[in-house]
C-alpha cells in the first residue's frame, strides 16, 4: 500500500533511477495508444476503439480514487457517485438539446463541486472507517434515489444522447468517429495525468502526501489537514464528474448502474491492480481490467469471480500494484517496527 512517493524518497540517485522507470510507463502509454489507434483506423475498427475509449473514461474514475487513496490516504467506496452525477448531468442536458460539448462538461463540474463540498464537509469530519462507510452509503442512497426517480428515467436511465461535435476553435472533433473520440480521450486523460502529477508536486500535493503519512505531524507543523483533505476530495470529485460527463457522449445513454457499488469497487480494484499513488498505474489498470473483462466475458458471464480473486491476491501479495513493480528502490516499504496498538 506504500505508493511511489517522491516526496519522502531519500536517496537522490535512487530517485533518478526510479523516476526513469515510472517515466517509461508514462511515455509508453500514449505511444502504444497511438499505435493502437493507427491500426484501428487502418482496419476501420469500431468495437475495440470504442471499448478502449471507455477504458480511458473509466481510467479517469480510477485516477479520482487514486488522488484520494494514493495521495491523501482516504479510501472512497463511493466515487461512482460523482461519475454518475457527471454522466446524468451531461445526458440530461444533452438530451434536452440545452447545451453542447463544452456546456455539458462545464455543467457537470459546476454541479459536482458544490455536491462534493457538501458531502466532503460531512465525510471528512468523520475519520477512518467512518469516511469509508459514509462515501459508501452516500453513493448507495444516491443510486437508489436515481433508480426511483422517474424524471431521470428510473431503472431504464436516460437514452437518446445525440452525437456531438466538439468545437476546439481551430478544429472540430466529430465524436461520432471512434478514432477521433479515442484520440480526444487519450489527450484528455494524459492531460489529466500531467496536470494532476504537477499538482501533486506542488506544496499542496506534498501536504496531501504528508497527511497520508502522518496527519498528526502535519497538524503540528501548522497546517490544517481538514482543508487539504476537503480540497483533495473536491478535486477528485471533479475529475470523476468530468470523465462521467464523457460517458453518455460515447455510449449514448446513462443508467443507474453507473452509480452502483460495482462501479466504485471496480475503480478501487483498478487502482490497486494498477498501482496506488502513481496516477499512471490506474490508467494501465483500467485498460487491463476492461480488456480482461472483455476477454473473460466472452467465455463466461461469471468473470467477476476471477477479477475478485485477482484483486484479493493483489491486495495480499502485490499491494503496490503493476506500477509498483517499476519503483525499484522502494520495493521494501519501511516498516514501523511492529504495529501500534
Amino acid at each position: 500500500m506504500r505508493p511511489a512517493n517522491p516526496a519522502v524518497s531519500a536517496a537522490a540517485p535512487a530517485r533518478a533511477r526510479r523516476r526513469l522507470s515510472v517515466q517509461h510507463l508514462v511515455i509508453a502509454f500514449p505511444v502504444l495508444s497511438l499505435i493502437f489507434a493507427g491500426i484501428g483506423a487502418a482496419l476501420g475498427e469500431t468495437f475495440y476503439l470504442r471499448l478502449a475509449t471507455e477504458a480511458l473514461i473509466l481510467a479517469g474514475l480510477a485516477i479520482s480514487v487514486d488522488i484520494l487513496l494514493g495521495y491523501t490516504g482516504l479510501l472512497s467506496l463511493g466515487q461512482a457517485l460523482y461519475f454518475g452525477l457527471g454522466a446524468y448531468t451531461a445526458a440530461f442536458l444533452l438530451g434536452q438539446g440545452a447545451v453542447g460539448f463544452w456546456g455539458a462538461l462545464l455543467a457537470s463540474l459546476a454541479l459536482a463541486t458544490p455536491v462534493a463540498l457538501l458531502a466532503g464537509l460531512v465525510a471528512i469530519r468523520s475519520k477512518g472507517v467512518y469516511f469509508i462507510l459514509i462515501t459508501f452509503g452516500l453513493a448507495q442512497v444516491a443510486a437508489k434515489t436515481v433508480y426511483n426517480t422517474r424524471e431521470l428515467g428510473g431503472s431504464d436511465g436516460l437514452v437518446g444522447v445525440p452525437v456531438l461535435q466538439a468545437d476546439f476553435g481551430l478544429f472540430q472533433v466529430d465524436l461520432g468517429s471512434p478514432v477521433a473520440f479515442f484520440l480526444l480521450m487519450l489527450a484528455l486523460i494524459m492531460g489529466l495525468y500531467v496536470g494532476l502529477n504537477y499538482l501533486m508536486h506542488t506544496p499542496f500535493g506534498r501536504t496531501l502526501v504528508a497527511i497520508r503519512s502522518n496527519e498528526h505531524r502535519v497538524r503540528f507543523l501548522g497546517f490544517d489537514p481538514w482543508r487539504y483533505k476537503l480540497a483533495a476530495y473536491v478535486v477528485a470529485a471533479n475529475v470523476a464528474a468530468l470523465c462521467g460527463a464523457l460517458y453518455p457522449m460515447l455510449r449514448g445513454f446513462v443508467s443507474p448502474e453507473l452509480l452502483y457499488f460495482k462501479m466504485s469497487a471496480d475503480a478501487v480494484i483498478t487502482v490497486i491492480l494498477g498501482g496506488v499513488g502513481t496516477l499512471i498505474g490506474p490508467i494501465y489498470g483500467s485498460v487491463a481490467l476492461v480488456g480482461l473483462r472483455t476477454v473473460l466475458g466472452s467465455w463466461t458471464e461469471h468473470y467477476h469471480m476471477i477479477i475478485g480473486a485477482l484483486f484479493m491476491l493483489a491486495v495480499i501479495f502485490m499491494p503496490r500494484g503493476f506500477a509498483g513493480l517499476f519503483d525499484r528502490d522502494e520495493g521494501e516499504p519501511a516498516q514501523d517496527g511492529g504495529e501500534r496498538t
Partner: protein
Amino acid sequence: MTEAIEYLQFVLAPQMLNGLTIGVAVVLVALGLSIIFGLLDVVNMAHGEFYALGAFISMSLYSLGVSFWLALVLVPLIVMPIGFLIERGLIQRVYQQDQRHVLTLLLTVGLSIIMEDAFDLIYGPNTMRPENPLPGSTELLGVIVPNYRLFLLAVGVATIVATWLLIYRTRLGAMIRAAAFDKHMTASLGVPVLRVYAGTFAFGVALAGFAGVLLAPIYSVFPTMGHDFVLLAFTAVIVGGIGSFYGAVLAGLLLAQIQAISSLYISPHWSDPLLFAIMVAVLVVRPQGLFNWMGRS
C-alpha cells in the same frame, strides 16, 4: 376516539410489529458486524454475502429433504468453519501491515464480489422462496400477527440474549474481550489470540448466516439479497457506535422502527435516504455513536 384506536390497532400496531421483527433480524446482522469490528478492527464488507450464504445453504438443505428446524441449527454450524478458514487464510495475512483498516476492508470487498458471483453461478439469478414453516396467524391484543413473525421475534431475541451471555458472562467471552483490549497482554497469558480472532470472525458471520435462514421465508432468496440489508445493518452499527453491543441492538431496533413507521407516511423509496440522513446527523453530532457511552480508544 374510536378512529384513533382503530388506527392504532389496524395500521400502526401491525406496522410497528413488522418493524420489530425486521429490527430483530437487523440486530442479528449488525451484531456480527459490530463484534467483528470491535475485536478485529475489520469492517466486513462481505457481511451481507454471509447473510445470503446462510439463506442459500438453507435452500440446498431443503432440497436434500432437511427440515427448516434442522437447517436453522445446521446452517450456522456450516457457515462458521467457512468464516474461520477465510479469516485465517485471507484476512489474517494483512493484519500486521500499518494500513490494515484499508487492506482488510479491500479484502472483504473482493470476497463479497466473489461470493455474490458464486451464488449467481451455483443457484442462478432467479428469486427463490422457501415454504413458510409456520403458516397461520395469531390474534394478540386485537392485533393479527403471522405466526412466523412471532417465532422470528422469539428466536431473534433469544439469540441476542445468548450472544450477550456468551460475550459478557463466559470465560470464552472474557478471552474475546481481553484480546480486543490488549492482544499482547492477552497472548502472554496463554490465550491463543489468533484463534480467538478467527473464531470471533466465524461467530459474527455465523450470526449473519443464521439471520439469512430466518429471513428467507419472509424476504425470499436471490444473489444480491445481502446488499439492501447490510446497508441497514451498517447504518445501525454506525448510529449505535461501532463496536458497541448495546448500541447495535438499540440502534437496530430504532432504525427498523423508524423505517416501518415512516413508510406509512412517505414512499418507501425515501426510507433509505431518511435513514442515511439520520446516520449522517448522528455522525455530525456524536461521531462515536448515540449509545457508545464508554467510547472506544
